[in-house]
């Protein structure tokens, strides 16, 4: 497997060489299909068990119960994956590298933004609230909020200035930190990590969802933005400095 993009062969005489690879891939697909269609292979799944434990889980929605109670540890790590994504993207940012993104053309986007962003925030909040007993939840809400953020970033909207720059990183960390502290608090109360049951469970889950949705939305927007906040502030006077204190 060669990666890197250089040294490609002209398209027309690649065809013959592709053939064996294609044949192998088709064979692979056939094997996958055979495994999938193998009779009697389908088992019952965990639906029944989830239903049986739903009462203790604190929420009506089964997916939410799985995500934020039965397998909350997965979701905790999930939040870290997003945060990690932001770290990686930011660590790759070089102020001297990118031609700064030109603001996309004004009027239409601006009005769209005025129209959509409040709506998106509302829809996001609704999804968060709805998640406790039907489709919806932190991820969906976070995705919508993230979308709103992306819209704002698209034309460097003045609305962004409402959000304090110094608050960005703490905002990103809010979800994972809150999740961790809930887990540790549960241990402090004598339970296992992340152990919470009805009746407190529903309250905790809503709080968790709120924090997670907020951070997820922010993370998604930050992924799109692609640059750490410190650098944004310094963009105008991009002089290298010796002083370590000035760095931040």
């Amino acid at each position, binding site marked *: *497997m*060669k*990666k*890197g*993009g*250089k040294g*490609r062969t002209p398209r027309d005489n690649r065809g013959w060489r*592709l053939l064996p*690879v*294609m044949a192998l*891939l*088709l064979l*692979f*697909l056939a094997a*996958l*299909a055979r495994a*999938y*269609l193998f*009779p009697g292979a*389908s*088992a*019952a*799944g*965990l*639906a*029944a068990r*989830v*239903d049986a434990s739903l009462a203790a889980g604190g929420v009506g929605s*089964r*997916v939410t*119960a*799985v*995500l934020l109670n039965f*397998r909350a540890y*997965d*979701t905790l790590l*999930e939040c870290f*994956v*997003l945060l*990690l*994504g932001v770290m*990686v*993207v930011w660590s*790759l*940012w*070089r102020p001297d*590298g*990118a031609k700064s993104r030109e603001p996309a053309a004004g009027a239409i986007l601006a009005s769209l933004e005025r129209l959509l962003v409040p709506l998106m925030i509302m829809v996001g909040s609704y999804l968060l609230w709805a998640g406790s007993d039907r489709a919806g*939840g932190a*991820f969906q809400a976070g995705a919508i909020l993230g979308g709103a953020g992306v819209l704002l970033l698209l034309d460097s909207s003045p609305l962004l200035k409402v959000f304090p720059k110094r608050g960005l990183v703490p905002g990103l960390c809010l979800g994972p930190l809150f999740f961790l502290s809930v887990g540790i608090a549960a241990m402090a109360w004598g339970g296992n990590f992340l152990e919470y049951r009805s009746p407190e469970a529903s309250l905790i889950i809503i709080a968790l969802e709120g924090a997670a949705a907020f951070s*997820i939305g922010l993370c*998604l927007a930050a*992924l*799109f933005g*692609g640059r750490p906040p410190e650098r944004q502030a310094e963009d105008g006077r991009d002089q290298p400095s010796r002083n370590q204190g000035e760095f931040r």
Partner: protein
Amino acid sequence: MTVSPALIYGLTGLALFVIGLAGLLLCPQLLRKILAVNVMASGVFLFLVTIAHGSGALIDPVPQAMVLTGIVVSVSSTAAALALLCRIRENADRRDPSQQKGGR
């Protein structure tokens, strides 16, 4: 075995996985490779959703939760890949003009 929607979805998922794999192996451009990985991921997610619907009347929430989690992972790593791609491009751009000057 009757042809059910679940069957079609499942096979489609697997086919997407293989198509993505083909793209990853055969496309020389990095951006296409990244997209190919996303196609693969979609295939896996479709497959998982099919499993959730596959058995009995009850819809199994566990694979659904897995898909949600998987999507977020996929977003995160795609973002990282794109950021990397941008950096690699920048480097290539920075080198190219000087080469052209030298050549002419």
